[in-house]
C-alpha cells in the first residue's frame, strides 16, 4: 500500500504570469513526482501541489529562488490519512 509519509501539500500563490510559467515548468519535472491537486493556470487561482518527501527540498528551493509565495497546507499527508483510517475503523466497529 502506497504511503505518503512526509509528503506535504503546498498552496502556492503566483503573483504574475511569469511565475505561472515557472510553475508549469516545475509541473513538467516528472522525476519530482509532484501531484498537482490544482494546476497552475492563472495568478488569480491558487496552486495546490502534493510534494513527495524526497522532492521537498528541491521544490522549496525552487520556490524560494524564484520568490514564489507558498504555504504548507498539510504538514504530513500520511498523518491525515492515518486519522481518516482510524475514524473509519472506529465507525466500522459500531453495531449496525
Amino acid at each position, binding site marked *: *500500500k*502506497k504511503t*505518503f509519509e512526509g509528503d506535504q*501539500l503546498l*498552496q502556492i500563490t503566483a503573483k504574475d504570469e511569469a511565475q505561472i510559467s515557472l510553475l508549469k515548468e516545475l509541473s513538467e519535472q*516528472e522525476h519530482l513526482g509532484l*501531484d*498537482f*491537486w*490544482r*494546476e497552475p*493556470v*492563472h495568478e488569480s*487561482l*491558487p496552486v*495546490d501541489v*502534493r510534494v513527495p518527501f524526497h522532492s521537498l527540498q528541491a521544490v522549496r528551493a525552487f520556490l524560494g529562488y524564484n520568490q514564489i509565495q507558498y504555504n504548507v*497546507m*498539510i504538514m504530513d*499527508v500520511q498523518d*491525515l*490519512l492515518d*486519522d*481518516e483510517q482510524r*475514524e*473509519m475503523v*472506529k*465507525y*466500522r466497529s*459500531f453495531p*449496525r
Partner: protein
Amino acid sequence: STDDFVYTTYHDLNSINSFIDMLVAENSNLVSKIVIGQSYENRPLNVLKFSTGANRPGIWFDTGIHSREWVTQASGIWFAKKIVTDYGRDPVLTDILSNYDIFLEIVTNPDGFAYTHSNDRMWRKTRKPNSGSSCVGVDPNRNWDAGFGGAGSSSNPCTETYRGPSAHSEPEVKAIVDFVKSHGKLKAFVSIHNYSQMLLYPYGYTSTPAKDQAELHELARKAVTALQSLYSTRYTYGSIITTIYQASGGTIDWTYNQGIKYSYTFELRDTGRYGFLLPADQIVPTAEETWLALMAIMEHTRNNPY
C-alpha cells in the same frame, strides 16, 4: 438499516453497495437499482433510480468519477437518503418526483475507488492498463466525445489528465453514454467533483459560449445563493473554461451537446486546507449545502420544461 448507517464517516465500496441495497429494500415503492454496465475490473456500475411512475423525463446526478474525491461519494450517499426521507414531506421534491425520475450514480468509478481504499488513496483515474505504457488508467473526465483530444487534456498515460486512446474508451464512461442516449429524456445532468468550491457549466473545451449561457449563468447564481444560505461557503460560478481552465473531453460538455440543457458540474468543499482529504466531520455539511443547490437546479428544470 439506512437509519443506522453512519453518514459522518467515509465508507468503502462494499459498505456503499450494502447501503444501496438496503435503501432499495426499505423503499421499494420509490427506489430501484439499475446496473448500467460493468467497470474494467467487472464491478457493477450501480445507479439508483428514484421514480413514482413510468415514462418520465429524468434528472441525473453522479458522484465520484475521480476516485480520490471521497467527499463526493459520501455526499452521494447522503443525497440518496435525503431523497427517500424528503419524498412525501418536502412538497417541492415530491412534486419534482411526480414529474421526473432522478438517477444517482454514487460511485461512478468503482475500480478507482476500490483502489483508493486498498493501494493508493490519491488515485484519480480508472484502472484500465494502457498498452505500451507501464502507467495505468484514464482520466474519465477527459474521455468524453466533446473536443476529445484537444487542449486541456493529455496524451501521456502517465499524467493525471490522460484522455485515453479514444473517446468513450473507458467502460465507466461508455456506460453513461449508452444510458443517456437510450434514455433520451434526461433534462438535467449534474456531475459532482471536489474540491475548490465552484459550480460550472459548459463549455470547457471551447471559449465559444454555450447558446444557453445566460440562463445557465443565472441558474448557477440562484443555485449558489441557495447553497450559501446554509453555511456561507464561498463559491464561484461560470463556464469551465473561464472559471478554471480549458479542459477537453469533459462530461458536461458532452451532455450539453447531447441536448441536456441543464448540464452542470460541481467542485465541492474545500479551498485547499485539506483538498481531497476533507475530514469526515465535514461530509454532512458539504452534502447539506450542496443539496440546496441541487434542489434549485431540479426546481428550475421542473419549472422550465423544454
